[in-house]
């Protein structure tokens, strides 16, 4: 005999009372709020809803009630809040912590032939002994790198201009590769170079040792050469030539380009992006002007620059979306990173948007003199005699000692946006990160003051902008953004979605 069917009322809480799960909220505009839960799931609702939810004015007959349950904003006595599922999601977001330091930057020399306006470090000298990494330091640094627990390491060789120190590079690559194999670790190697000295011999070497190249491309000639002077004024020509030759030998996807932004750059977003298209690049990183200048910037100067950058970014992103719609695949990297944090269960490997901050935990910089720094920017500060973020030295410290150094402990106190003033209340906390070095450099305080923080202004504005695109953007825009978030080309995404 069949069992009787029970009515829907059997499957609900007896009373309309519920409890809150952790969430934060933010006003998007006069009509709308966004609620974000502890794992970064969000829902946009009419203004005033957060208050109604918190004061238990939502009733179980409302659709919103069910949505809030499903998205882990509330729970009631009828069913479990499934905290273990939430914990799994939380753990997934923080998976980047596992394995500790994955990116290891080696400053093999400070010598360089360029004198880029924004560079704090290069030395115009031929004296190898003074500013090159010695063999002893290199050996100790590689040994320290290999002690990082991660099974996958990235070794980034930088300078100055690293190709001026090929001997040292060859030595490092050789012991790093054999050490990694011995330790059962995968090792990616990349050299960041202006490519002015990219001989065929060096290219062959890179090919034979599976080394990728990363170079600077600030935009078309008139921007690039203005930013990056060198004797002969031909930095752009050399970069383009180098890119072309490197692609031919190493492969299309083994050469990357990064732009550095100056005042001049901010006036020409389309031209810069067009240059990247012209050079057949499919990703570009629209970065703000670096605040790590020789001159200490005043608060309002940074603010003004950030306003100008945000205009540049929005115009640039708009143009990039248009290019994608027209059939040219181009990803804006910062946008992609944020979208991955907003839309997918994953965190990020991008150090600047991690909380706890990636400084030290996910990246370490080994300077030519053996000093170990928490980030690249920390090392730049050292060039201006600010050693706040020097964790130790390969010659005197073990890896473990780096992480118990006073510098690192101080850094840790400011490293989690979960507990920083302003951030601890912010709805975008799961999408954002903590950057103690940035705040130290721009505000003289690792913890930072959110109201005047360029880091905060940038991230909040960009995140709001992306949420708006996700809510209101055309289908094409949604497709493009989702393609970026899920690491697929637009064509691949469209092949899998209804058309």
């Amino acid at each position, binding site marked *: 005999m069949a069992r009787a069917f029970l009515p829907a009322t059997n499957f609900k809480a007896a009373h309309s009372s519920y409890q809150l799960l952790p969430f934060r909220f933010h006003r998007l505009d006069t009509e709308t709020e966004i609620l974000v839960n502890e794992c970064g799931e969000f829902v946009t609702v009419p203004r005033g809803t957060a208050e109604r939810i918190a004061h238990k004015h939502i009733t179980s007959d409302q*659709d919103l009630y069910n949505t809030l*349950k*499903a998205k882990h904003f509330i729970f009631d006595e*009828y069913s479990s809040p499934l905290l273990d599922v939430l914990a799994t*999601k939380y753990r997934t977001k923080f998976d980047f912590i596992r394995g500790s330091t994955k990116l290891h930057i080696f400053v093999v020399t400070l010598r360089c032939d360029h004198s880029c306006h924004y560079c704090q470090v290069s030395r115009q000298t031929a004296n190898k002994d003074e500013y090159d990494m010695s063999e002893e330091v290199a050996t100790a640094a590689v040994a320290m790198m290999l002690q990082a627990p991660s099974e996958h390491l990235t070794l980034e060789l930088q300078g100055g201009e690293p190709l001026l120190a090929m001997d040292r590079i060859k030595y490092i690559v050789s012991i790093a590769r054999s050490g990694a194999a011995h330790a059962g670790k995968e090792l990616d190697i990349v050299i960041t170079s202006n490519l002015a000295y990219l001989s065929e011999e060096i290219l062959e070497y890179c090919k034979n040792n599976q080394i990728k190249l990363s170079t600077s491309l600030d935009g078309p000639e008139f921007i690039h050469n203005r930013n990056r002077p060198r004797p002969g004024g031909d930095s752009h020509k050399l970069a383009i030539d180098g890119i072309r030759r490197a692609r031919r030998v190493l492969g299309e996807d083994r050469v990357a380009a990064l732009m550095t932004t100056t005042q001049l750059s901010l006036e020409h977003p389309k031209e810069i992006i067009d240059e990247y298209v012209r050079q057949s690049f499919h990703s570009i990183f629209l970065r703000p002007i670096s605040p790590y200048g020789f001159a200490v910037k005043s608060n309002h100067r940074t603010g003004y620059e950030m306003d100008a950058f945000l205009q540049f970014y929005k115009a640039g992103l708009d143009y990039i979306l248009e290019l994608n719609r027209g059939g040219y695949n181009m990803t804006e990297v910062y946008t992609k990173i944020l979208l991955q944090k907003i839309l997918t269960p994953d965190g990020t490997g991008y150090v600047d948007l991690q909380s706890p901050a990636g400084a030290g935990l996910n990246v370490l910089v080994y300077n030519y003199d053996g000093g170990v720094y928490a980030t690249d920017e920390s090392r730049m500060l050292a060039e201006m005699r600010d050693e706040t973020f020097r964790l130790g030295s390969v010659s005197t410290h073990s890896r473990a000692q780096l992480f118990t150094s006073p510098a690192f402990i101080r850094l840790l106190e400011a490293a989690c946006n979960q507990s920083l003033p302003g951030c601890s209340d912010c709805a975008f906390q799961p999408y954002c990160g903590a950057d103690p070095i940035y705040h130290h450099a721009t505000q003289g305080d690792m913890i930072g003051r959110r109201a005047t923080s360029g880091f905060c202004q940038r991230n909040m504005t960009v995140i709001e902008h992306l949420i708006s695109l996700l809510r209101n953007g055309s289908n094409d825009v*949604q497709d493009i953004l989702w393609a970026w978030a899920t690491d697929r080309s637009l064509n691949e*995404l469209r092949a899998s979605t*209804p058309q």
Partner: protein
Amino acid sequence: MGMGNGSKPERAASEHPAMRLHTAGKPRGFQKPIVARIVTQPVPSSARRDVALVLPRLDPADDLSGYAAIILAEAAAGYLCPTPLVHSVRDIDHLRPGHIVALEPLSGFVRTLYRPESPHNTLFATERCNSNCLMCSQPPIDTDDFSPLMDRNLKLIDLISPSPDYLCITGGEPTLLDEGLLTILAKLRDTMPSTYVHMLTNGRRFAWADFTCRFASVSHPNLSVGIPLYADHAALHDYVVQAKDAFDQTILGLHQLARHGVEIEIRVVLHALTIPRLSNLAEYICRNLTFVDHVAFMGLEHIGYAPRNMQELWIDPVDYEDELESSVTALSRFGINVRIYNLQLCVLRKSLWKYSAQAISDWKNVYGEVCDGCLVRERCGGFFQWNTKLQSRGIRRVLDT
């Protein structure tokens, strides 16, 4: 010991001779069920173990000893052989060599368990279920069928030859077999490791980590589970499946299975209760069940409990095209594979045709008169036989592709 009653699929199938799976006659000479492989011509004595010979009539000259059973269309008069017999069998034309049947000693049922030529063979685990879904196509029966079905299934696995590409384990709720299920899986693993086994289950048992651990430890190399999910929140899902705690247990079960790397299909039946929050469910799956292999949206089968609850369940597929498309879009944008089963192409928006798979089991498929001349008939799964009673107003031949 009933083996089921109610509107069983076999009854409907009897209108379609090629797909008959069930017949009956008069049993004689055996007390326990017999599972045997069919032959329609006599075979040498050495080859008669576990073999049932199907005959239209008896010939006194026949040597019938050594067979597992004789299946006889006519009435047996003067049958003296000790070999088990089912005579006066209603239909025998559907019984082909290589088929595997089960013969019941009390009722004389002759049940086809396995057909080598079919891509859709199933292992029936139990009539019992701890859920009671409003639209269940195989309504549960609370009967202690553990021993007879275990015996039958283990014997069946022994007799299946050659190994099929695909085998489905279904019921009722297979996890109710507990250790018995693990025994079956282990036997499948050992006798036909390359057969892809897909098990339909409500997944609730997997919420208990120790069971899931034992389940995964069987290490079947080619196994996936199909688990239904009907809503993004407990109240609605539990109502549809008529069991409190079902949603929570299913979600936790899915997570435990994912820990062990088990391949998972989520099944969503499309009806008036699941459609309104379908997009929410799609988003829920993306955010909480990211690890699933794919999501299968299934058209409603007008069988089992469904007719009884049709008032609450019926929605014409042409009326939920929007919801279905936006749910598929949400999942596929996220990167989760989608399939659509049991919906005819004429009631599916063209943009969704590429997800449509011909999954209606071959013994359920029919095509109507309306299908004559349809340009996409070959690609389309057609109808369930019982769905011919309640149809979408969108059913039509497609003349433009």
